[in-house]
């Protein structure tokens, strides 16, 4: 038997508060992962089953779903990429809305570009902010 298998988790000290569980979850998330966070919420709920924030986090940290969407495809994106490659130097700082390789609108405003593309077939459109980074 390995040392790992023989080790039993310590029972939660009775003095643990809901806030201590929330803080542990926050620390996990701030370390750049969600791994283990739901389990902490679960342990907290074992002691405080009606705590609203622990319940909410337990729900928010539920397993993530990935579904195939055969209807969600886009048209060939190359014309939009080609437009960007050829023209981006002239549009630094702008939001551009493209439709199958054609510029629909270049603007300082994301909302204007978003609006200008409304009603077009989304399979051919693209919004991009041309920034130097």
């Amino acid at each position, binding site marked *: 038997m390995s040392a790992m298998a023989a080790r039993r988790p310590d029972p939660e000290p009775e003095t643990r508060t809901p806030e201590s569980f929330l803080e542990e979850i926050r620390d996990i*998330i701030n370390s750049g992962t*969600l791994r283990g966070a739901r389990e902490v919420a679960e342990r907290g709920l074992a002691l405080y089953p009606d705590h609203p924030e622990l319940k909410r986090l337990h729900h928010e940290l539920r397993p993530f779903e*990935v579904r195939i969407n055969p209807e*969600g495809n886009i048209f060939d994106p190359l014309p939009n990429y080609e437009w960007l490659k050829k023209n981006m130097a002239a549009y630094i700082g702008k939001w551009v809305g493209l439709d199958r390789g054609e510029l629909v609108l270049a603007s300082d405003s994301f909302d204007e570009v978003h609006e200008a593309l409304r009603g077009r077939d989304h399979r051919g459109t693209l919004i991009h902010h041309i920034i130097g980074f």
Partner: protein
Amino acid sequence: MAEARIVIPVTLESVEEPVLAVVDTAAPWCIFEPIVAKTLARNLLPLQRHVSLSTRLGVIHGALYRVAIRIAADEGDSLNLEGTVFLSPDWRGPNFIGYQGLLQRIRFAVDPETNLFYFGRD
């Protein structure tokens, strides 16, 4: 010389048009530009407020959200999934698709020769 990057179009809930995002296996979360973020955050409650993220632009403070994202294919099947997205009004970089926040939930590969990004669920 321009830096080589893997950039893919993704569609977010509440923004119908695809936006481009840089695939970054070193980024923990997905990150979106503040104006895109604003559109998203309007309709969502944060998974966690007061989250810090260390970036090449320094430490940024924001909130984490659970967001429906579509990675659209031009051949084969597209995927609908939920990403963990960091939103901050202080972010000044482009959109990123991060590892913990999305990439580790799918299978993916890159063919640098043909500049193609392959992805799937199984």
